[in-house]
């Protein structure tokens, strides 16, 4: 939608900065910045996936943590069966190969999104918000009571998944793997929102009635969008499990859905990179404020309030306006 030439240049600069980040951070003595950035990238993927239905499609899902958790648990459960040497259900062997676990996580969260979406999309508005929440909470309670997989304590993944030729124990490698996947993800997302499919999804947000009147069967398009979005969250969850080397029901609690939503709103609803910026702002704020004071929640709350009341369209819009003014 932006037609200026500034945008590609800006993106290139951002990419270079992200590639240089681990080296710079180490040199400057802020080694932990790399893992902070890894977390931002992963949450950025999750938030951008949510934004595809929420911002572009106008479907306010309050249950996307479910898919995030499914992705994480896929990695965790496959790893557990791999390390114990016991096949899942007696015939599915476990694995620690990322080239297998990530696609499996994406497919499984897609299937879960298909089930939840197929039921939830029969409603709309506030009811849709609540029914997606309901399904996510059901999954949360299910995993809390699954003793085999650690229940509430969560599932420790002793070693991150392996990739051929790469040393996944190295934090920089993990960062670059996440960066590569994020770049790929955002490229695909960019194509997606501008495609014919994206075109009707954005149309559905603006007026479902209009889209029906030009002959669009809305339900199946919304459902596919919901599935795609769930798959993206599942991918992020799988990466997060690899990064934390840990999966827990905490990943699918409603507060996590809320956090993802807040990242989207904070960054800018219905923009490609807004959620990534939102994730960065949220996580950096959380870490920085928490290292300053134990009353960090007060500060975070006030900042969120400020963003809503005094910026229109989140941090990205605020930034664009500030840049526009100074230029």
């Amino acid at each position, binding site marked *: 939608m932006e037609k200026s030439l500034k945008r590609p240049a800006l993106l290139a600069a951002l990419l270079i900065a992200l590639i240089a980040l681990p080296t710079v951070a180490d040199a400057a003595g802020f080694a932990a910045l790399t893992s902070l950035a890894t977390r931002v990238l992963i949450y950025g993927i999750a938030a951008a996936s949510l934004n595809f239905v*929420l911002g572009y499609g106008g479907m*306010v899902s309050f249950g996307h943590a479910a898919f995030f958790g499914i992705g994480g648990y896929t990695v965790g459960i496959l790893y557990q069966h791999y390390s114990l040497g016991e096949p899942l259900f007696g015939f599915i062997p476990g694995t620690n190969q990322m080239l297998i676990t990530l696609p499996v996580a994406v497919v499984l969260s897609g299937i879960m999104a298909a089930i939840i979406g197929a*039921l939830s999309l*029969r*409603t*709309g508005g*506030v*009811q849709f*918000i*609540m*029914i997606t*929440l*309901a*399904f996510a*909470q*059901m999954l949360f*309670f*299910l995993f*809390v*009571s699954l*003793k085999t997989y650690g229940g509430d304590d969560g599932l420790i993944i002793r070693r991150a998944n392996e990739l051929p030729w790469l040393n996944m124990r190295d934090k920089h490698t993990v960062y670059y793997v996440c960066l590569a996947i994020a770049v790929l993800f955002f490229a695909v997302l960019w194509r997606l929102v501008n495609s014919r499919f994206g075109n009707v999804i954005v149309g559905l947000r603006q007026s479902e009635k209009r889209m029906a009147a030009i002959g669009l069967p809305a339900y199946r398009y919304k459902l596919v969008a919901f599935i795609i979005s769930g798959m993206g969250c599942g991918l992020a969850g799988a990466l997060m499990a690899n990064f934390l080397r840990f999966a827990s029901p905490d990943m699918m609690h*409603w*507060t996590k859905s*809320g956090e993802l*939503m*807040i990242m*989207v*709103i*904070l960054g800018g*609803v219905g923009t490609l990179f807004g959620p990534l910026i939102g994730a960065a702002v949220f996580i950096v704020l959380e870490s920085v404020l928490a290292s300053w004071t134990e*009353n960090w*929640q*007060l500060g*975070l*709350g*006030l*900042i*969120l*309030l400020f*963003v*809503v*009341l005094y910026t229109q369209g989140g941090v990205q819009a605020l930034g664009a306006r500030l840049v526009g003014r100074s230029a």
Partner: protein
Amino acid sequence: MTLFLEQLLNGVQFGVMLFLLAAGLTLIFGIMGVINLAHGSIYMIGAYAGTWVAAETGSFWLGIPAGLAAAAFAGVVIEFLVVRRLYGRDHLDQVLATFGLILIFNQAITMLFGRQPLFVSMPALLDGSVELLPGLFYPVYRLAIIVVGLLVALGLYLLINKTRVGMLVRAGSTNREMVRALGVDVRLLYTLVFGLGALLAGLAGFMAGPILAVQVGMGEQILITTFVVVVIGGVGSIRGAFFASLILGIVDTSLRAYLPGLLRQIMVGPEADALGAGISSMGIYLLMAIVLLIRPKGLFIRNS
């Protein structure tokens, strides 16, 4: 039989507690179109203020006005400073802003009262149990909660159906434009409704004091359940909130009371208990999902 009656009373008691919270939430939701996540915080404020005053003065009864006043005051302040700017804004903005409020209130309470849960002792009048039927003992305090809850429901019914303010509220929940067109000071009406909702939440919070842990985060724990009630009953419908609260209270209680027993008939004990607990945790969400799939707008809103 007495056990069944006792469980039924338990369900009703849990239901009326939910109703006190849900009534305010559904009004705010239905009339102003605001999703107020901070409703749970108001409940917490009512509980803290009331309990603290009761503990300091040694009188449970003095806690009541304190809790109500603090909650209503907090509600009006929130409305005036924050929510007023959110009318007509996107639901998402409201979610973000009221989430910010939750963080602020939780931290403020921690700074004011510390991290330890507060204690309030039960007044002698409400302590102990009474024998309702032969063999059916029931705690007086819980009976009192039921009575207060039902009185509030009756009061709300009269307010909504018999007064001019109530007429405006009803009109407002179905057609916001019409209320504006009537030349009513909508701002004042909104502030009043918000304050009323906060007052009820504060009442619920204070009454919960002696039976629950008065601690930071107590609001979020019950907030989601309250939203479930509002949605099942139908957004904006007080009547819906009332019946949905009772249904949810009774369903939740009976699932916990009877499901493991039923499952034990068909499977081994411990597994049945775990499965039963698992299903009953999901119970209210399952109920909401089923209700919405059958009646997408909730039980008490006509589908058009």
